[in-house]
């Protein structure tokens, strides 16, 4: 029997992986993927509680989050393209200066 707790455990693991990856990785693309992990961990939470409580609100929220994640990925990849054109790198440690 897979209970809500199991979903929450999975969600927690994904969230932690996302956060750690976001903080420790230097590659912009990896960081972006970690953000996706964090968002989807939240989605699993929404879906799990939606199922347990028998309400659709959580699933509606999950759809919204997916939409936002898509928009975020589009903008993030756009920034990465611009960054590569400007600095020929995707290393975040090399883009700490606000100029140019």
């Amino acid at each position, binding site marked *: 029997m897979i209970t809500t707790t199991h979903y929450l455990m999975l969600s927690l693991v994904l969230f932690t992986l996302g956060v750690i990856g*976001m*903080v420790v990785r*230097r590659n912009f693309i990896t*960081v972006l993927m970690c953000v996706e992990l964090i968002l989807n961990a939240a989605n699993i939470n929404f879906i799990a509680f939606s199922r347990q409580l028998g309400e659709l609100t959580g699933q509606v929220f999950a759809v919204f989050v997916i939409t936002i994640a898509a928009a975020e990925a589009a903008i993030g990849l756009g920034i990465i393209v611009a960054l590569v054109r400007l600095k020929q790198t995707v290393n*975040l*440690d090399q*883009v*700490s200066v*606000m100029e140019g």
Partner: protein
Amino acid sequence: MKDLLWLIPLFPLLGAIVNGLVGNRRGWEHRTTSAVALTGSGLAMLAGFAAIIDWATTLGTHGVHANRLFTWIPAGPGLTADGLLANLTIDFTLRLDALSAVMLFFVTFVGFVIHVYSVGYMHSEGARSYARYFAYLNLFMFAMLTLVLGANLAVLFIGWEGVGLCSYLLIGFYFEKEWCASAGKKAFIVNRIGDFGFLLAIFWAFKVFGTIDFAGMQALIEADPGKYASAATPIALLLFVGAIGKSAQLPLYVWLPDAMAGPTPVSALIHAATMVTAGVYMVARSNFIFALSPTALVVVAVVGGLTAVFAASIGLAQNDIKKVLAYSTVSQLGYMFLAAGAGAFGAGIFHVFTHSFFKACLFLGAGSVIHAVGGEQDMRKMGGLARHLPTTYWTFVVATLALAGIPPLAGFVSKDEILGKVFAAGVGDLNGFGSVYLVLWGLGLAGAFMTAFYMFRAVHMTFHGQFRGGHEAEHHLHESPRSMTAPLVILAAGSVLAGFLGIGKALSFNLDINAFEHFLHPIAPALEVEHAPVLATEWVLILISVAVAVAGILLARRFYFGPEAFRRPKALAERFPTLYATVANKYYVDEAYDRALVRPLAGLARFSWKGIDTVAIDGTLNASAFFTEIAGDLLRFLQTGNVRNYGLLVLAGALAAAAWLLL
């Protein structure tokens, strides 16, 4: 013309504006600048004479003509000291009467003559400073004429401050030299002490009388003298404090000798003939207040008498020709106040009048000498100049004789009048201070002796004997140009003739031909003295004062003339070294003021600067700036620009928020 009095000060003001704002900037040629300046002062003289003639023919010399221009300060209704509701206003009014006519006459006349002299004296100045000089000189004429014509204390005060400003500007004319600039500052600051008293007097008079118009105050006092008797003493004394500053009396005389740092024509015009006599004029102008207060009168007399002797004694040992004349001026101003203090306001003004001629002549003569010897002012480096500067020599001697009090020259007539009046006040026991006046008469006589001595000492040291300034300088000796000698001759003639206007009663064997006193009587009447001395006594006094003057001249001749010149004074100085050093160092008054006042005040100023301003105020400001900077420096480390750092901070913040919510 008498209704256009405002034109008289306006002409020199226009001259000052044109030369000061245009001529100075453009660097006009000397010819243009002097044309503007001479037109300004010349038109003022002509307008002044026309006004006097118009006034005398239409109103008579006893008349008072007031020319109200506009309401200057409408103060609105207010209570006077005795509780009356009055409409308090101060009008800008000019006034022509016998007293201002006298002042107007000699201020414009001597002023114009000195303008002419300046054209020659200042010709080697550059174009811009030449224009600056004449702008100041014209501005001075404007201020002095406002002072003389003012019909109330406030208008008089405008002129009073204006002449002080011009005096400051002209003393510091050679401001590149540090000592000239500080002499100007000294004059301004010392005068400020006196002006403070004058201002208080104006406020007090406004409170008591509800008006500061001379005519208005006089009418109130004449209506009820008893009511104002108690207020008269403080007002008169405060007015006199103002006069002490402006007219260089004890203890505020110290600025006048230093004022000799200015160009010599300035010394002649401002610091001998006109501005410094403004104090005497002001006392004579407010004679109705002084007459009410025996205390104020005797204070005026004592200060004047002491100054006369004190300054004359300093003059005995000065070697700078202008310093001798400066101390002589202080001393003569003392005589004028002595006369005013004895209630003889007319005699005081008469001495102002005659003094303006012979002292201006002496200063201009000294200027001519300084011009000839290339700027040297030390009489020890002169001598034998009579051969080279004949006109200067003769005019200088005439003016010296006048100052020494040799009949029938102007100085004799006016000084003798003063001493006679003081003696009469002593014998007649004026206001119960008879013995004081007798002592002052003795002091005046001693001062007359010293005057004759130091003036002839100056003549002998400058003009007689051998030239002591070296061969080079001797080669350059020359008589001054026409524009400088002509004023000398005119003023020397004035020194001879001016005295005949005011021949005293005794001198003319009771003929009563003292035109000057009759002229002034309606405005500045002398106080009546009971038991006037008889004619024989007065003649004895006259002979005594002449004898004293002659004795001074003979002593100076014995000391400073002929093959044995300088031997006796040197021997005396060696015998009494302390006494000589004290007198030659001006009784160390400057040093005492320096110790007692200047240094403590400078110390206070230094403390305010270094202590309060630099440390306390700037320190607080700098400290707050320092801490802000430190805070910024520390916070800067948060703002790394590194996205992952921000991510970590967001995480830490989220964890902290979660912990706070859960725990």
